[in-house]
């Protein structure tokens, strides 16, 4: 009895600290995390730090369209440090607002998909039988379709808009979590501690949520980090294809798409800078995600 409670305490104390310490031991991951924090900070604070609300048509002036980086605004005198797009939008402001949409869509859809997918995966594993078969075939179906094609079909049916893009991403992504959660839960449910819990007469839901779920979390966190990056890329792709956000409220993908037609005329900045912003965000998230995978995966432990 004493020995058991000691192990439990040790486990309760050390894992997250161990993870944090191991995470910090990789300089690239730390840089990634720092960059990510700065990006999140910019996105959250954007409305208070931009010189222009790029989504307010009143504040745009088409006479300032396609100005090169460093040009000055005629009316108010502030400088367009990264130039303007085809409608006279300040690209610094537009990128900050674009990051807001990207992160909101990416994190929001990944979190909701994670909750739904994990629950369905756990239920599937615990209940088994026909429900398990049904859910897993549905997952197979979703995973076997090309993602973009699927997204195009769903959006063609739902219509455009940020909300619908998120819904599409959730519909596509929950399957990854469900499959991982199920696999993990099947392994865990054969462990002795689950038998012990059962023996103590604890109800099935408390076993699933209170005992199995916490032990399934590490791989799910890794998937979550990578899925955020994937969701952001997918949102950018859909907007690039003209199926995402409204044209008057461009996200990073739409900014890149809008600038694309000016590439041959050397007005590179309209596509390039939003593209760089997207690239940096994705790389930062992936650095953090990769490191999390390394430190959370017991098989990779030395």
């Amino acid at each position, binding site marked *: 009895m004493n020995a058991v409670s000691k192990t439990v305490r040790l486990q309760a104390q050390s894992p997250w600290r161990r993870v944090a310490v191991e995470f910090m031991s990789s300089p690239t991951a730390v840089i990634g995390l720092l960059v990510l924090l700065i990006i999140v900070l910019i996105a959250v604070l954007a409305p208070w730090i931009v010189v222009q609300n790029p989504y307010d048509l*009143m504040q745009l002036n*088409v006479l300032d*369209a396609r100005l090169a980086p460093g040009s000055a605004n005629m009316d108010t005198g502030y400088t367009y440090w990264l130039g303007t797009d085809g409608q006279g939008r300040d690209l610094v402001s537009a990128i900050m607002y674009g990051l807001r949409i990207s992160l909101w869509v990416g994190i929001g859809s990944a979190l909701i998909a994670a909750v739904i997918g994990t629950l369905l995966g756990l239920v599937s594993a615990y209940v088994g039988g026909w429900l398990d078969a049904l859910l897993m075939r549905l997952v197979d179906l979703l995973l076997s379709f090309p993602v973009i094609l699927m997204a195009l079909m769903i959006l063609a049916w739902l219509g455009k808009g940020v909300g619908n893009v998120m819904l599409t991403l959730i519909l596509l992504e929950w399957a990854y979590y469900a499959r991982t959660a199920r696999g993990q839960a099947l392994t865990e449910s054969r462990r002795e501690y689950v038998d012990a819990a059962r023996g103590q007469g604890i109800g099935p839901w408390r076993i699933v949520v209170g005992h199995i779920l916490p032990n399934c979390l590490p791989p799910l966190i890794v998937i979550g980090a990578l899925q955020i990056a994937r969701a952001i890329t997918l949102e950018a792709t859909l907007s690039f294809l*003209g199926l995402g956000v409204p044209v*008057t409220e461009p996200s990073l993908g739409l900014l890149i798409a809008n600038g*694309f037609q000016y590439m041959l005329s050397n007005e590179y900045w309209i596509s390039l800078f939003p593209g760089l912003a997207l690239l940096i965000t994705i790389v930062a998230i992936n650095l953090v995600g990769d490191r999390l995978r390394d430190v959370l995966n017991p098989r990779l432990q030395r």
Partner: protein
Amino acid sequence: MQPRVRSLIASALILAAGSVSAQTLRIGYADPVSSLDPQLNNYAGDRSVALHAFESLVNRHDDKTLPGLAKSWKVLDDTTWQFDLRDDVKWQDGTPLTADDFVFSFERARNVPGSVASYAGATRTVESVKAKDDHTLIIKTGTPNANLLPDVDSIYIVSRHAGAGASSADYNSGKAMVGTGPYRFVSYVPGDRTIFERNDSYWGGKPTWDQVDFRFIANAANRTAALLAGDVDVIDKVSPTDVERLRKTPAVNVFAYQGLRALIIQPSFREGPNEFIRDNAGKPLVDNPLRDVRVRKALSLAINRQAIDERIMQGTVTEANQWMPANTFGYNPEVKNIPYDPKQAKELLAQAGFPDGFQLTAHVPGDRYPQAPEAMQAVAQFWSRIGVKVQLEVLPWAVYAGKANKNELAISVIAWGNGTGEAAYALTNILTTVDSNKGQGASNWGHYSNPLADKALIDATSEFDEAKRRKILEDSVKVVSDDVGIIPLFHYQNIWAARKGLKVEPLVSDRTAATMVTEQP
């Protein structure tokens, strides 16, 4: 089988010649082709391809009618026209062209199986087409139609001996591709290219090019890149964003001409509430404010057309104050450019009962008209400055056209091509009261209706005196302009670019064909 063998030999010859000889012209064009059948669909791409192999009774050039396969014509009475045909024209297989082929062509054009954009409109007044003798054709119309020449110009003449019983597929395979035009068919790969060779027996003199390689390149940037890389000699529909770059390239010449296509905003005249017009609190307005001429005028005055021309279209368009460009039949020079006057616009809105404006959702197709979404975003900016808060929705053409056609939108946009070069064409299709039985208002998406405009079309159609007809049309321009029945934005230019040493001159509207390209030392 034979045409296929011939095309194989021809393509083998092209390959054998290394890249290409100086006598081959390679054109990269933008408009998709639905079929080589010149009578199937009235599409820009189909018409451009057909121009190589087929001809019509007359030729339209700007607003003038020139002889084509008919040497001359006269009006016998209000409803009877006589066309004297050339007697030296042979089909590309050697058979002489006779009046009977015209009878066959007009019969066939009315009803080609599988057509989704037929030529029925062009033959709507034609009652009968008869051969008086081998080289005289009599066309009778049901009602007097002063506009018959532009109408018959749309109908390509196909031969009875090769075309009787031929389906559109027979044209695509080359079996029925026997024309009278300057180039004869060699091969066709749908969605990719059509190859023609010179018709040595052409009645109009020796055609310039030995071989024409007519390639479909849908994307504007890809066309520009293909020209810069030397993959093609000529491209059409150059994107405004690439014009400056191409002008600066020494190896390339840019040819820009005044076109007949205008970008026009059509406000909806539907009565009652419209889900896309709301008050500032977001509730749908009980009455449609766009029915008030002061509101329409305010919206028109609020637009800085010069800024759109310079900053969005990069100087490749001309400001529009009416639906036809200057120097065309029916253009009214007394209607002046619409000034940019946000102050007056605000006053007019206040007078109409909207001192603080209202909310409006505008729609524009994203995949149809060059730079239309960009231009409409700028319009949205200008409207927001007078208090009309605009949300702009960019839709795929297929979705947009369905909604616009049913007058479900508040603000729709159309790039109207005045294909016949005179004002009555737009009057018929976008300005007169919608009436499908009369063939009127087919693209009048806002359901604009003005008895004076309706009357002008009736008067112009039956008026044979050209000066009087011109006056009627010019007056109708004034009527629509005072009423702000449409809000014209700009007239597109037709822009081609070619490698140095070539010259491109427009033929008809924005069509592209090898006959437009000559060598220029």
